[in-house]
């Protein structure tokens, strides 16, 4: 599994592969990442969906990816303390991959759902996604 990004650690995500080889992303909500009202900022769910869909594609293809589009729906921002996310690939056409993911709260209720379009980068891409 690829290394964690610094943003990943800054927010406090934890990623692992389950027994079926699927990427699972967990978040235990820290006091510094909540909103003024104590709810979960939608940006956290956006980040989870971006990471879990991108990681699922990257893990499946063993290649780096770059996000092209993300479309997300949010259902509940009540802070349940911990969240998990998983994703699946729904279409591949050349270097363009479409995946979908969902974020669940501690009671396994879906709180956000997203669909994302990602571009697969060359294994020899530089840090900006350009082939070198």
């Amino acid at each position, binding site marked *: 599994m690829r290394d964690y*990004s610094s943003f*990943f650690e800054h927010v406090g995500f934890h990623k692992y592969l389950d027994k079926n080889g699927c990427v699972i992303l967990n978040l235990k909500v820290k006091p510094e990442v909540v909103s003024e009202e104590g709810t979960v900022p*939608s940006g956290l769910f956006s980040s989870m969906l971006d990471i879990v869909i991108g990681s699922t594609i990257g893990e499946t293809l063993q290649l*780096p990816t770059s996000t092209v589009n993300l479309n997300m729906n949010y259902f509940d921002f009540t802070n349940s303390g911990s969240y998990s996310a998983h994703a699946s690939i729904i279409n591949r056409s050349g270097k363009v991959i479409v995946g979908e993911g969902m974020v669940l709260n501690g009671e396994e209720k879906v709180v956000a759902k997203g669909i994302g379009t990602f571009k697969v980068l060359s294994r020899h891409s530089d840090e900006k996604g350009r082939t070198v």
Partner: protein
Amino acid sequence: MTKTMDEVRESFEASPFFSHIGFEIVQFEEGDVRLKLPIHEKLYNVNGTLHGGVHATMIDLILGMAIRSTTKTRCTTMNLNINYLAPASGGEIQAEGRILKQGYRIVTAEGELYDQAGDMIAKGIGTFKLIRDE
């Protein structure tokens, strides 16, 4: 309860997540809002560029600011669609946003992120629900 512009601005700045990421409000007038983010390495993805979650967070925030500056009413995101146009690393990025359509409960807004050279790096459109005290 309707809040003043200063109270609304302070409520954004009081969010722990807002300061944890490092956002700074540049302009907060009715219908004229701008936000900036100095890019630091803690916000990078594995490719060494700004993480896509940060783009989404910043667009979500600028749309919420645009809506609250006009309606003075709290709102919650229902849907957000982000198009990623270019990577960013180093310097700072700025966000602008505006309302496209305002109903009694549902508001649609759009916003963009620009890098230090003024090039657009992301564009988003979002649907928000106004939380009215009734």
